[in-house]
């Protein structure tokens, strides 16, 4: 009897033990990372890696699990980044004082929730066409959405808003609405990027606690999602839509939900990118261009479409290679090459594109396929 109670207790305690240890470890990491890793660019790399892992894992929900295809994921990331930067700057102004860990418990959750909500809303909008469009066409729509987002933000500069509004004011109602929209858009800094309402930099609240903690949490969520009933239904839908619908899987609901979930993940990743400690204090529209979307696709396909751990590996690998090339490019060793206009980033893109083409021809399911990396000898479920 008592043995049973203690067993139950320890089981219940064990359930809380892992997250508890995790939170304590993350708090310790938040306070100590500066001392363990003194190089701030290295810390930035670690945080970037975590964010990109999140980008890859969220894109994997659409491209891998649902079998849809999005090449506009950077758009959702961008929406998240702008939203969290705006929310954090205004909260920072309202709270006053310095950036601190204690205050980050107010600012970061609010900023991330705003990012997730906003990105999810756009994910819903982009997901709606996925009911009528498939394959190439859906890809084009997602690309179109991401480009519209980037072009609208970067072309809305102070001044354009004013003249455009003036021209439209003749049309009552619609005109003033457009005017308001273009003025508020132009406050986002256009091509130069957003760096707070007073252009004094976005407050960087999200320390390692938030960046790594949220990433870990959402990766676990993605894993649970894949092996849940929802994930199985999604896979059934991917394999054969008509058969899945016949056994009661509603394609509309599942497709749109997968878009919304992926967008929420990307929004949170962007939200972290926008306000992460050691990051840049401004959000640039050109960080969310087609190349960024293509990088995200590369991450997912390299690892294996449908594999959560594969997407994580792909995200980490691509980020590290981007940074490695930036470092090599800026090193004095390459002075001679650089003066001849040798573009290492172009070389990286060539290599990635070639790998993608070769993978598609030789092994279209990616390195891991749908398998997951696991510790221990558990059976592959599903």
């Amino acid at each position, binding site marked *: 009897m008592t043995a049973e109670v203690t067993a139950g207790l320890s089981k219940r305690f064990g359930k809380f033990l892992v997250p508890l240890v995790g939170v304590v470890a993350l708090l310790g990491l938040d306070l100590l990372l500066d001392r363990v890793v003194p190089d701030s660019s290295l810390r930035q790399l670690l945080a970037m890696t975590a964010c990109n892992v999140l980008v890859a894992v969220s894109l994997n929900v659409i*491209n891998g699990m649902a*079998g849809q*295809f999005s*090449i506009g994921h950077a758009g959702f990331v961008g929406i998240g980044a702008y939203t969290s930067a705006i929310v954090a700057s205004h909260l920072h102004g309202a709270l006053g004082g310095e950036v601190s860990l204690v205050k980050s418990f107010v600012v970061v959750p609010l900023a991330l929730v705003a990012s997730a909500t906003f990105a999810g809303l756009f994910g819903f909008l982009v997901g709606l*066409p996925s009911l*009528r*469009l*498939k*394959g*190439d*066409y859906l*890809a*084009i*729509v997602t690309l*179109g*959405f991401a*480009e*519209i987002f980037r*072009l*609208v933000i970067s*072309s809305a500069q102070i001044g*354009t808003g004013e*003249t*455009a509004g*003036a*021209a439209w004011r003749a049309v009552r109602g619609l005109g003033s609405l457009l005017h308001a929209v273009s003025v508020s858009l132009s406050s986002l800094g256009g091509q130069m990027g957003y760096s707070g309402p007073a252009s004094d930099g976005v407050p960087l609240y999200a320390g390692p606690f938030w960046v790594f903690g949220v990433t870990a949490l959402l990766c676990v969520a993605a894993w649970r999602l894949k092996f849940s009933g929802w994930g199985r239904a999604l896979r059934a839908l*991917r*394999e054969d839509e008509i058969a899945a619908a016949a056994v009661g899987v509603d394609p509309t609901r599942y497709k749109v939900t997968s878009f919304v979930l992926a967008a929420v993940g990307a929004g949170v990743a962007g939200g972290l990118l926008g306000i992460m400690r050691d990051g840049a204090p401004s959000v640039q529209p050109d960080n969310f261009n*087609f190349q960024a979307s*293509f990088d995200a*696709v590369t991450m997912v*396909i390299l690892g294996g*479409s449908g594999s959560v751990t594969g997407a994580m590996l792909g995200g980490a690998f691509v980020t590290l290679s981007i940074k490695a090339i930036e470092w090599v490019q800026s090193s004095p060793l390459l002075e001679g090459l650089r003066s001849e*206009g*040798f*573009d290492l980033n*172009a*070389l990286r*893109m*060539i290599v*990635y*594109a*070639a790998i*993608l*083409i070769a993978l*598609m*021809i030789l092994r*279209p*399911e990616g390195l891991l396929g749908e398998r997951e990396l696991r510790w221990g000898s558990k059976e592959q479920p599903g």
Partner: protein
Amino acid sequence: MLFQALVTGFAQGAMIALVALGYTMVFGVLKMINFAHSEVFMIAAYAGLFVMVGIAGRSSPVVVAVAGVVAAMGAAAVLGVLIERVAYRPLRLRGKGGKLGRVTPLVTAIGVSVLLQNVAQLLFTARYRNYPRLFDNPRPVIVAAALLTMVLLEGIVKFTWFGKAMRALSSNEEAARLMGIRTSRVIAKTFALGSSLAAIGAVLYCFDQSSAYPTMGFKIGTQAFVAAVLGGIGSISGAMLGGLLIGILGELVKLTPYSGGVDVLVFLVLIGVLLVRPAGLLGSTRAEKV
């Protein structure tokens, strides 16, 4: 001002239509979007540029222009066939279907596009290269050349054996093969033809815009793609109509204060068409699942 914009838009639209034809023809025979088409356009612009700069001043402008167009067409045709051979044919031979059947050609096409764009960046560097100024007012030349090309294309598609084979392949690949059409050869020829049309468009575009750069394909490629979808992808007259509409629409937008919004508008048109009438203006309304 409005008339001027219409004329400019017509010239722009004629060029866009030439590029759009390549998208639409490849879609007709392969049922896939050749994203690398915009990069073929860019490489052709460079090929034409190098030849024209090489022989400019030595002969009359017309000869130089024709030499440039021919060189660009040759380079584009070779590149188009090469892309089909290396990247698309292995996928096709493996057969369609499978759980990633729709995604695989798409990723390959985007991969080829990114590859070519960065190869150009590496080889030619990112700087803008100016085209030689051969004509004082290139617009009439552009319109005349584009219209002539379209008439010729209509002739090829309607009256030659190859055109017939292409149309047969487009309507039913299996039946076409059973009737003795060598589908692989027709597909390769279609790529060559579509790419050379893009090359003509590229050289004409550069006469108008006067410079070539590695990312030039993205903008014009998007507009051409939207034109093809707007007209009804797979339909040749649709691509021409769509190109003209996009060209004129773009010029009209430039009259408003939102002159920077052309690209946004092009994407909005695309999304709108896909949602309301995915078959496009002249496409068959027969239920084709897209």
